[in-house]
């Protein structure tokens, strides 16, 4: 509670920083390829994640082509459709979003935002990326092995995941599980870095309650991921043993193709428990970094301090803790005890409280702010809208009685795409438009950015909003072809065709974004050190892009929180975190 006394005029002498043992690269290879610099690793993570994400995007086109125009495309059969679904989901959730938020944004922003020179274990950090790359390559290899990738659905439920009726039973499922195991090992290496860097490497004056919310979001998400991914690890190892060695962890006694299998007595529900013990926290592993990024974007581009900073931090922590006791709401139709369902429905609805606090705080930050409708701000607003939309349908599905009839319909697909597909990707785009100038020193093209936003935002609504209606009609998910049914009217088929066209257009808009990323690297407007007039430390680096070691000789000293925007009386409408009070006083501010 007590501040260290400081000289009003001279400020505080820079902290005495012990000589940091930074690894200094000696060659092109160690500088750009086997680099131990978190910034390079972040770019590597991002490029890899976006590359494999493009594969998932093409897969979604394939799925939409089949759904919109069934029977038209001879190269998509039922098996392939299932494989497309599986790989699309798996890639988007784990290999794109998780890797991009934690490996990409985490690596770049944590050391810069907390005023560190690098991650605390740079070598392990480098290893983390290479293991992740290996996991991606193993995943990509499944497209080329005999039988193709697995078509078990992204949840990989046994027994069907390893039975012969499911495509990819030979190689696909084995490589999929191996890839997941690798991913988890790689992530754990990175995750240890993110957590310990936040705990140990903050610069002088950077208390936890002065950290930007982005760091809070990534930090909490990493802690959750470290504790939740072991569940997927255990489930993957056990399923792999069932598949390869014929154990019966999950596999019940069953008849396959008229023959009794070697399996017996196992519990498919056990897999579901393990999977969703990971799977639900995973939703928030993706959402919390997005929450953090959006908070910072909104505050910066509305030139106003974030409303209710303390509440925002507490809400992040509360969501993180609560998300570990809601997993069985994904299993309402698995035949669980009704009291269990009641318990999990209650915890699920309780999560809505901290989440709603966050949404209100974003809106109240915008209230009477000086809103600059920059591209990052547009994406941040898009995030709020899509997240609220998806969150409200989550309240529907969180209730057992509503969930049971809607389970396995397109309503669920619409819900989770809105809340953890579109919304986090809006945060990703907003974040990229916001921090690209720091990473490259150049601005992304504004006109292309606006085009990208509007097509993506409206297009995503055109795809996923009508999907709720299809779900309410009872249209099932995961079906290759609905065929002739009485409950699906002809208009629903027209709607499906419309959604497919919209999906194609949204996909092409992402190509414009990729073009913008490359084009602006060479032709973009020079950004300067702090183009948005932001307060947090990453914008105060002596060089842009930040050099090796991030800061000059001395680490920055932090005097204030990250949200001093439009402080009455200050000369500028933002006060950087490392600006001494004496300097502000000299300019006549009354903070």
């Amino acid at each position, binding site marked *: 509670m007590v501040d260290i006394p400081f000289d009003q005029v001279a400020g*505080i002498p820079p902290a005495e920083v012990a000589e940091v043992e930074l690894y200094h690269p000696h060659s092109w290879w160690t500088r750009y390829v086997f680099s131990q610099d978190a910034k390079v690793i972040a770019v590597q993570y991002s490029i890899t994640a976006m590359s494999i994400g493009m594969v998932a995007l093409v897969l979604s086109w394939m799925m939409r082509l089949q759904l919109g125009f069934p029977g038209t495309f001879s190269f998509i059969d039922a098996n392939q459709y299932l494989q497309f679904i599986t790989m699309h989901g798996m890639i988007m959730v784990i290999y794109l979003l998780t890797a991009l938020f934690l490996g990409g944004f985490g690596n770049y922003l944590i050391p810069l935002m907390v005023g560190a020179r690098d991650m605390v274990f740079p070598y392990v950090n480098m290893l983390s990326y290479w293991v992740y790359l290996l996991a991606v390559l193993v995943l990509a290899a499944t497209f080329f092995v005999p039988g193709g990738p697995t078509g078990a659905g992204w949840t990989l439920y046994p027994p069907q995941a390893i039975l012969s009726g499911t495509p990819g039973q030979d190689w696909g499922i084995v490589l999929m599980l191996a890839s997941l195991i690798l991913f988890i090992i790689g992530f754990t290496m990175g995750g240890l870095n993110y957590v*310990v860097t936040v705990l140990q490497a903050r610069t002088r004056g950077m208390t936890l309650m002065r950290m930007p919310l982005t760091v809070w979001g990534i930090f909490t998400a990493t*802690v959750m991921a470290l504790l939740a991914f072991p*569940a997927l690890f255990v489930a993957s190892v056990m399923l792999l043993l069932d598949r390869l060695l014929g*154990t019966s962890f999950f596999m019940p006694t069953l008849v396959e193709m008229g023959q009794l299998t070697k399996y017996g007595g*196992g519990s498919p529900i056990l897999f579901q428990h393990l999977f969703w013990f990971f799977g639900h926290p995973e939703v928030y592993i993706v959402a919390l970094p997005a929450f953090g990024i959006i908070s910072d974007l909104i505050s910066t581009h509305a030139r106003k301090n974030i409303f209710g900073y303390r509440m925002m931090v*507490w809400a992040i*922590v509360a969501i993180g803790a609560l998300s570990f006791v809601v997993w069985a709401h994904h299993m309402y139709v698995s035949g669980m005890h009704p009291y269990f369902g009641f318990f999990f429905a209650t915890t699920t609805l309780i999560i809505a409280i901290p989440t709603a606090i966050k949404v209100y705080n974003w809106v109240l930050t915008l209230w009477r702010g000086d809103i600059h409708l920059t591209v990052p701000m547009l994406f941040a607003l898009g995030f709020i809208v899509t997240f609220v939309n998806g969150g409200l349908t989550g309240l529907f599905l969180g209730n057992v009685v509503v969930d049971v009839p809607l389970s396995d319909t397109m309503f669920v697909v619409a819900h989770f795409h809105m809340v953890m597909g579109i919304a986090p990707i809006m945060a990703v785009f907003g974040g990229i438009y916001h921090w690209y100038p720091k990473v490259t020193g150049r601005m992304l093209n504004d006109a292309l950015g606006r085009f990208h936003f509007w097509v993506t935002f409206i297009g995503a609504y055109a795809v996923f909003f009508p999907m709720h209606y299809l779900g309410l009609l009872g249209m099932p998910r995961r079906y290759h072809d609905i065929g002739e049914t009485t409950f699906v009217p002809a208009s629903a088929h027209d709607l499906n065709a419309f959604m497919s066209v919209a999906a194609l257009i949204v996909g092409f808009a992402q190509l414009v974004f990729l073009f913008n990323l490359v084009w602006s690297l060479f032709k973009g407007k020079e950004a300067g050190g702090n183009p948005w007039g932001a307060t947090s430390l990453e914008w105060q680096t002596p060089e842009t892009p930040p050099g090796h070691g991030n800061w000059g000789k001395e680490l920055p000293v932090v*005097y204030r929180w990250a949200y001093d925007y439009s402080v009455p009386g200050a000369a500028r409408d933002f006060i950087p975190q490392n600006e001494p009070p004496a300097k502000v006083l000299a300019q006549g501010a009354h903070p």
Partner: protein
Amino acid sequence: MSAIVLFIATIAAIAGWWLSQQRLAAKPWLEQGIAVDLRGERGSSVPAAKIGLGVFLAVVGSLFALLISAYSMRTTMVDWRELPLPRLVWFNTGVLVISSVALQWALTAARHDDHDGLIAGLLVGGASAVMFLIGQLVVWQQLNIAGYVMASNPANSFFYLITALHGLHVTGGLVALGRATVKLWRGAPMTQMRLSVELCTIYWHFLLLVWLVLLGLLTGWTDNFVDICRQLLT
């Protein structure tokens, strides 16, 4: 899932305690200047590697708690047939205890600048850990010969899986211990060695604790405890 829920609750309690020390009720918008940073005042003496190990142990703990959860769920199915544990397992347990004690001894020696004691402790600790691993492999072989193969019963499958994962973690520890020993061999100063040895020792004690818990599970001693937990939660 009671074991993992209990484990997460424990972690949450620790995290909550830690957060309660971090002035989360501060009003950063009213404060300027260098706020007192608890980490800076007293916590920074803890090296990053030690915190990193602590976080890693939480991850490993979560892994084994999940295995225990899966184990206790699977035992309730009708096809479960208990696996007779070979006596050698008890011998192995003793060897692992010796390994832990030896490393503790090495740590004490490192703190007292006792170079010879440190080397002896590290070598005895490492050798007995290797012996533990060999012993576990022999246990596998004995079980295999007796017809308790991996896939014949879920109890066997769990035994092999649990011992394999525990053994892998011991192997990983041996790599770290080997590196520390090589460092000492090359004449690293005692001040540097202390941290390495301390980290290894913490990890060894943790793996011993995990092994004792797993042993209790595999011998059925914890059945009663698990039953109580299950009754509490259902």
